[in-house]
C-alpha cells in the first residue's frame, strides 16, 4: 500500500514540477525563510533583500553563461518540520545550487542535519544566530553572514560598560535568540565588572509583563536590556516599562531595532532607548547597498536585510566561481571572501564576473561586514549602537 502512495505522490509531484518548470536553464538558489510563524513580520524584507541581489545579477549579464538566477522561496515556518520540508523541496524538486536560510536556528539545524549536509548543498543563513550552529558537523557546508549571538552579546556588554552603564537588568525572550544573547551579555558584562541586577526570561505572548518588570526593577538597576523582538513581546515590555516608569534607560539587541517601537510608541518617548545592530564595517559597502535597496523600495534599516543580501550575493559569486558545480560551492564561497583579492562591493556583479573569468582572486566586502568566514563558517560581527532620532534609528557609536 505504501509504495502505491509513493507512486501517487511521485505522480503529483511530477505534475507540480512540470507546471512550475520555467526556462530549464535557470540557476536556482533557495530562499528559505520563516514566512509564516513567529518571525513572519521580518521575513518578507529579508527575502526581498536577497531577491535584490539576484535581480542585480540578472541585470548585469546573468550567471554562468548568461543564465538567469532565480530565487526559490520556501517557508520554514520557523520550525524544524517546516525547515526540513522546505529544504527537501528546494534541494530535490527545484534543484537549487545553494540555499539562503533557513531564517530560524531550529530550522537551520534540522534542515542541515537531515537534508543539506547529506546532499552536499551549501547553506548560508542570514539570521540563524544560535551558537549551536557553530558546532554542527557540517562538512563545511553551513555558513552564516550573521554573527553568532555570542559576539553581539559580548560586544554590547563591552560597549555599554564603556558608555557608563554599570548596573543593568536583563529581560530576554525564552528562545534560542534571547537566551544566546542574554547569556553572552551577562558573562561579558560581569567580566567587565558590571552588575546584573536582574536577569529573567519571559514567555512570548502574555498580555502583561508588569510583574516581570517590577521583579527586575527591584534589583535597583536604572537600565533595562531587552533581548526580544521589537514587533513582538519586546514591544509590549518596552511599552509597559515606559508607561510605568520602571527604568530610565533601555537597551535592545538587534531584534529590538525594528520600526515597530517607533511607530507604536512614538520617537519622542524613546529618547533613552538604544539598540545594537550589525552594520557593515566598510561604510561604503553599506551605503551602496542602502542606496540600491531603497531604490528597490525596501527599508535598508529593517533587521537582517544586509545579512540576507550578502548571503544571496555571495552564493551567486560562489556558484559563478564553482562553474555551477553544486559540490564546489562551499569551497568557492570561502575563496570569494577570504580577505585577499580585488574588493567587490554589493551590486558589482559584472566586475566580479569578469575577474572570476580571468581567474583573479576577489574579496567580497558585504553590506553587513567583510564575511571572512572562520573555520566553523561563522563571521565576527561588526555592530553599532543606534539611538532613535527624528528619522528613525541613527548610528550613535560603533561597537567593538
Amino acid at each position, binding site marked *: 500500500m505504501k509504495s502505491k502512495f509513493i507512486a501517487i505522490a511521485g505522480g503529483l509531484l511530477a505534475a507540480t514540477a512540470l507546471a512550475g518548470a520555467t526556462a530549464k536553464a535557470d540557476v536556482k538558489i533557495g530562499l528559505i525563510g520563516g514566512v509564516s510563524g513567529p518571525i513572519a513580520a521580518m521575513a518578507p524584507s529579508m527575502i526581498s533583500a536577497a531577491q535584490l541581489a539576484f535581480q542585480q545579477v540578472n541585470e548585469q549579464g546573468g550567471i554562468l553563461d548568461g543564465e538567469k538566477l532565480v530565487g526559490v522561496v520556501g517557508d520554514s515556518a520557523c520550525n524544524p518540520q517546516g525547515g526540513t520540508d522546505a529544504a527537501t523541496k528546494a534541494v530535490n524538486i527545484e534543484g537549487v545550487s545553494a540555499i539562503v536560510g533557513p531564517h530560524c536556528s531550529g530550522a537551520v539545524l534540522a534542515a542541515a542535519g537531515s537534508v543539506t549536509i547529506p546532499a552536499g548543498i551549501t547553506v548560508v543563513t542570514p539570521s540563524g544566530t544560535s551558537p549551536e550552529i557553530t558546532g554542527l558537523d557540517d562538512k563545511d557546508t553551513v555558513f552564516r553572514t550573521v554573527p553568532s549571538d555570542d559576539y553581539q552579546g559580548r560586544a554590547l556588554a563591552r560597549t555599554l560598560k564603556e558608555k557608563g552603564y554599570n548596573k543593568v537588568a536583563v529581560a530576554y525572550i525564552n528562545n534560542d535568540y534571547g537566551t544566546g544573547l542574554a547569556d553572552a551579555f551577562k558573562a561579558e558584562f560581569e567580566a567587565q565588572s558590571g552588575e546584573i541586577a536582574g536577569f529573567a*526570561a519571559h*514567555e512570548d*505572548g502574555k498580555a502583561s509583563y508588569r*510583574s516581570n518588570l*517590577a521583579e527586575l526593577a527591584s534589583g535597583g538597576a536604572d537600565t533595562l536590556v531587552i533581548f526580544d523582538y521589537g514587533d513582538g513581546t519586546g514591544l509590549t515590555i518596552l511599552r509597559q516599562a*515606559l*508607561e*510605568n516608569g520602571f527604568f530610565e534607560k533601555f537597551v535592545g539587541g538587534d531584534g529590538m531595532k525594528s520600526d515597530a517601537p517607533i511607530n507604536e510608541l512614538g520617537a519622542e518617548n524613546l529618547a533613552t532607548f538604544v539598540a545594537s545592530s550589525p552594520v557593515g564595517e566598510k561604510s561604503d559597502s553599506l551605503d551602496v547597498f542602502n542606496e540600491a535597496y531603497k531604490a528597490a523600495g525596501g527599508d535598508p534599516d529593517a533587521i537582517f536585510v544586509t545579512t540576507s543580501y550578502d548571503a544571496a550575493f555571495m552564493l551567486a559569486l560562489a556558484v559563478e566561481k564553482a562553474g555551477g558545480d553544486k559540490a564546489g560551492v562551499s569551497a568557492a564561497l570561502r575563496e570569494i571572501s577570504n580577505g585577499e583579492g580585488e574588493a567587490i562591493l554589493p551590486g558589482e556583479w559584472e566586475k566580479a564576473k569578469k575577474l572570476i573569468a580571468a581567474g583573479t582572486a576577489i574579496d567580497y566586502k558585504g553590506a553587513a561586514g567583510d564575511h571572512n568566514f572562520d573555520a566553523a563558517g561563522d563571521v565576527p560581527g561588526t555592530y553599532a549602537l543606534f539611538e532613535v532620532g527624528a528619522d528613525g534609528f541613527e548610528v550613535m557609536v560603533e561597537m567593538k
Partner: protein
Amino acid sequence: MGFLELINFYVIPGVVLGSIYALGAVGITLVFAILRYAHLAHGDLATLGAFLALAVVTALGLPPLVALPVAMIGTAAVAVGIDKAFYEHLRERPKIVTVMASLGIALMVRSVVQVVWGVDSESYVRGIVRPENYFGLRIKDREIYTVVFMIGLVGVLQLFLVKSKWGKAMRAMSDNPNLALLSGIDNKKVVMLTWIIAGGLCAAAGVFLGINTELKSMMGWHMLLPMFAAAILGGVGRVEGAVLGGLIVGIAEELSVLVLPSEYKAAMAFVILLFMLLVRPTGLLRGKVL
C-alpha cells in the same frame, strides 16, 4: 517590597488582566453550560473582535471604546454565523466532535486575521500613556475603563439572565436541557442568543486586551488557557464564577513571578486548572461538571 509596590505592580495589572480573562471566560462558561462543549475557538474570536475594532479605529479615526460596540456586534454575528455554518450540523453527534470542529475554527479565524491584517503588531493609539497617581496608586485611565466595562457588561448580562424571559430560558437550558425542550423552549433561539452574548463578550475581551497592550494575530490563542482556567475555577455555568475565576487567574499570573521563574508565568493558569480539576471540579461556586 512595599505594600504599594505590591498593589501597583502585581495586583492592579492582575485585576486588569483578570477582567479581560473574565470577559472571555463568561462566554466560555455560557457555551460550556448551555451548548455543553468546550469551545476552543474562543480565543481566536477575541482576536477577530480586536482587529474588527482596529478596522473601525483606522478607517473612521474613532477611539477604540467607540469602536467596541461595532466589534462586539460584528463578532457576535460571526459567532452566530460559525454556529450556523459549522456547529449546528454536529449537534446530534457526540459533543466532542464539536470540540474538535472548534479547534479547526480557531485555525480558520486566525488565518483570516493573518490574511486580512497581516502578522505585525498593531495598536489602536500610538504613543504611550503614563499612569495617573491616585494616593500612591498608579492607575491608567484605560485600566479603569477595562474594569468598569467588564463589571458593567457582566452586570447587564446577569440582569438579563435573572429578569428576562429569554434569559431565564438560557438558564433553564443550562440547568436541564431535556426538560427545557419538553417545556417547549426553542433550542435554536437559545443557542443563537448564547452565541450573540458569548461572541460580544469575547470581542470585548479582545478589544480591551488590545487597548491595554498590542494587537497580534496570536493574542487570543494565548488567552485561551487562562480563560478556560477561569471558567472552570469559577464553576461551569456560573457567570459570577467566571468573573471571580478570571480575576483570580489574572492576579495569580502576575503574582507567580514572585515565586516561579518568570518563564513559567504562562504555566500558572494551567496549574490552577489542574489543581481545580483535582480537588474541586465543580469550581468555587459549584458549577456543573460535564
